[in-house]
């Protein structure tokens, strides 16, 4: 094989590898997903964020409008401070919107859902979402349910007794 054919093959090999790397970067991994997009940051405080993770999606009416940039514990009031990185394309969100942490599916990952408010002012960089709803913790809910069922039972028998005693 001549030197020219050999070099052509080597060039083909290197180009193939570059094409593979491009595919791994753009199609397989999240490299370019949020870079180049202009964003603005909004803060929201929650009593309990449940299983929320960094990079979880932020949605409005099911449409993705941003992602969770960071999660930290506020040292003063012991609430979770979540910074939402919103896409600039969604710049028209009223600043009295509510943020709630929901779960995708029964056991799926948590995400933040925004419910639009009625204000004329839009959210902008550095704003704080004051109206928030915590994550629903399945175990707590089951516990409360059991507790309230028991309480109903005992309350019912108590009131029966209370009704009976005067007579």
């Amino acid at each position, binding site marked *: 094989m001549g030197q020219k054919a050999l070099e052509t093959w080597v060039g083909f090999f290197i180009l193939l*590898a570059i094409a593979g790397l491009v595919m791994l*970067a753009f199609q397989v991994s999240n490299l370019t997903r949020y870079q180049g997009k202009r964003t603005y940051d909004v803060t929201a405080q929650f009593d309990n964020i449940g299983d929320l993770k960094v990079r979880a999606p932020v949605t409005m009416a099911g449409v993705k409008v941003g992602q969770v940039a960071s999660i930290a514990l506020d040292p003063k009031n012991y609430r979770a401070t979540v910074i939402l990185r919103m896409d600039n394309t969604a710049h028209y969100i009223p600043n009295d919107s509510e943020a709630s942490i929901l779960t995708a599916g029964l056991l799926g990952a948590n995400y933040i859902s925004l419910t639009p408010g009625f204000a004329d002012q839009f959210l902008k960089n550095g704003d704080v979402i004051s109206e928030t709803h915590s994550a629903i913790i399945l175990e707590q809910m089951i516990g409360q349910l059991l507790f309230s069922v028991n309480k109903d039972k005992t309350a019912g028998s108590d009131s029966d007794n209370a009704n009976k005693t005067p007579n």
Partner: protein
Amino acid sequence: MITFVQKVGRLGLSICTELGRASFFLSKSVWRKPRTGKKLHLLAHALFNSGVLSLPIIIVSALFIGMVVGLQGFNILNKFAVTSALGSMVALSVVRELGPVVTALLFAGRAGSALTAEIGLMKATEQLDAMEMMGVDPLGRIMLPRLLGGFISLPLLTIIFCAVAIYGGNLIGVQWLGVDAGAFWNNMQSSVDFRLDVMNGIIKSAVFGVVITWMAVYQGASAVPTAEGISHATTRTVVYSSLIVLGLDFVLTAMMMGGW
């Protein structure tokens, strides 16, 4: 008892000498005055031998490994009705582990053994000595391009392996078993991180490339110059480099998982 201790000591000493010799060999071959331009055709030749000629086996085995991971993953995930996670499962297992390790093992068998046999035969037929007599340094002329060729080819082959294997998983999962294409690619993108998963896989394969090529070239250069010696050296290359790849893979993975 004393003889046993003595044997252990001799083994330890010989391992140390061998390691030292191999290190000197590597540093003498690689750290030299750069003379780019003139010797590039030698590097092209080495890249052709260890890279291009390994392409068919890499592509074919990548396709089949991707397909089998897709099939196995589909059967497991189907039990939990989360076949939409097939994409992330295929991509993560291929990019993190299967890609670097399987490519390295195939490379050791395909290119490493060829390197050892070639250099060993050069030594047995006294070509290396003849070269030295003519005033040509065999370390620069023979070893360096082959070492560099191996260092460069293995990461490139790993990238190609990963891309083809993921395509194979897509072929089985989406085209044959009917997983939703959008869910397949979208879940893959949201769970694969470029730096943590893809780059770490490539770093692993770069380390494997250095180890395998070093082992292969050194074994060839230090082979006993007989037919039997070359066959032993070739066997040692494949066995040792496979073992080292598997062991190093564990160490590297532990380091990367530990947030290094």
